[in-house]
């Protein structure tokens, strides 16, 4: 069985957000929910400031606190290391959100894509309403740009009252493809592969650069690794002073 992991090369990442947009398209992610997200930080005081961008997603921890806490095994591990969620078993208690140290699980507080249920025309007498459009394009379900392939292992659009999160695009992996955020990254900053294969690109990168993972001290064994750091800045060499 493979053990899937992702390496994010922060030297290559330009913070364009293409991963997040690709993720939304591929997984029909609703408004307010972010399977692929980011942490941005600003250091220093103007004019000596620096902006730091770190892409985030579910870490698919080997010892996942969300899986440990879920009372009905709705949140569970697959043999290939992916942390998967079954909305049919989810009671909507949000204990996984409470347990997740990485804040990457989201709850469907209301019906997904509610803006596409609006019955008011965008321009009165000029355009159709979102509801009319969705009826014609996609039989009233999801969005006009819904990806039916997502429905192979999860509901195409997750209903209200259950949680959802990144699945490493398990439906694409089953079809022999890499996750769509990896595919879409224009800088090849995301590298996906099998940690059990010593010659896989992820194994080679982890051997070549000193990787780190988020909140490693918690012992959750995340399977998303970060390497390198983008910083082209130069500075005048001095010893400082008093």
């Amino acid at each position, binding site marked *: 069985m493979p053990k899937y992991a992702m390496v994010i090369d922060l030297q290559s990442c330009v913070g364009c957000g293409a991963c997040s947009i690709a993720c939304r398209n591929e997984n029909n992610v609703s408004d307010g929910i972010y399977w692929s*997200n980011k942490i941005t930080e600003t250091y220093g005081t103007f004019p000596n400031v620096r902006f730091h961008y770190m892409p985030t997603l579910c870490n698919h921890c080997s010892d996942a606190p969300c899986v440990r*806490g879920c009372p009905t095994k709705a949140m569970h591990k697959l043999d290939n290391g992916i942390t998967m969620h079954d909305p049919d078993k989810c009671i909507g208690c949000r204990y996984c959100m409470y347990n997740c140290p990485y804040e990457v699980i989201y709850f*469907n507080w209301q019906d997904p894509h509610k803006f596409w249920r609006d019955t008011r025309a965008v321009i009165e007498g000029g355009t159709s309403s979102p509801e009319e459009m969705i009826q014609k394009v996609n039989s009233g379900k999801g969005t006009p740009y819904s990806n039916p392939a997502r429905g192979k292992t999860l509901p195409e659009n997750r209903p209200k009252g259950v949680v959802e999160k990144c699945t490493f695009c398990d439906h694409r992996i089953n079809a022999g493809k890499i996750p769509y955020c990896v595919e879409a990254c224009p800088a090849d900053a995301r590298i996906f592969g099998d940690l059990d294969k010593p010659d896989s690109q992820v194994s080679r990168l982890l051997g070549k650069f000193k990787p780190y993972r988020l909140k490693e001290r918690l012992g959750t064994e995340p399977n998303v690794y970060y390497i390198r750091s983008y910083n082209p800045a130069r500075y005048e060499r001095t010893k400082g002073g008093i």
Partner: protein
Amino acid sequence: MKAIKIQLWYGLLLLGILLGLLTAYRVLISTGFALYAKTDILVWTIPIAAYVFFSLTSTGLAFVSSIPVVFNANRYQPIEKRTAFLEISVLMAAFTCLLLHLGSPWNAIYFLFSPNFASPLWWLGMLYGLYFIVLLLSFWRMHTAKTSKALGIFTFIIAIATSTVLGWLFGLPDARPVFDANFLAMYFPLTGFASALAAVLLFSLAYHSFAKVPLSEGDKNLYNDISKLFGVVMAFTLIFFLWRTIVAGISASAVEFAGFRHMLGSGWYHLALWIGLVIPLLLIAMPAVRNATWGKVTSAALFLVGMFAGRLEMVLSGLVMPTGPKAEGQPPFVSYWPTIWEVFVFVFALAILLLVYTLGERNLKLAEVPE
């Protein structure tokens, strides 16, 4: 005149239940949880705080009702049956809050078909289910004028298990060390017991007042004893409360405790400390006030109000500080004020509690002493 008052009372309770049913329809079927003041940061709010409040009060009541059989303290027998029925009523209120907290409560069937033994939430669900069944059996035995020692002891053990497992549930995540499982496993049973003593005083004295049953000398002595015990347990609660403030709020410097430090300045915290602990403790410490009915009722009512605020403050203290990607675009601490629908959840639970209890008081002879 009495009949009108009773009809008015039932009318009020039915209004509370109707508001609750409307909330249940809108939250679970039509609109969703967007009706609550919940966000991706504040994932648990009033419904879960109310659940903790009611469920711990119920387990505390189990300690009180078990006193005659577990500790052979026969002077507590006159309140045994009322306390046992109150446990059931309060637990039903707790279940109501839980129902309106869960996004998909119908999937709870998977507690049976897909159990996760590593999850404290699974253990809690199963224990509360068992607890409810044992309570019904235990009360039925009392209603048939007999007390079962075995059932009494069993209820006592399950009550300890449920309240400590609730501490495990809150304290499980390493990511939220502000909830310390070891501390909560002691604090929850203790505060549940204190809440139960307050509830016993309130409901028993309400019975004497509304049913116009004068207090006998034995009743007075019993309620004075309970008030003294209430004062002692309340003092221990205050000590634990202050230690939590010192350890996790003042001396801890880790960033994970910042949420609690922030809550130290909140109205919920001060309501819990001053209205819920300091004032009732001062009242109950004065013998003249403690022995007066108004003193008992006032201190018990204030304690319960403060305890509810304390439960909410505790839940919020682990959540108010956004972290990770969810902190993007957020202030360092998020504020919370409940929506009217969240208030209706509490009103719904309280109305169910009072309706079930009123029906029991009128039909099940709760003042009877089982053999």
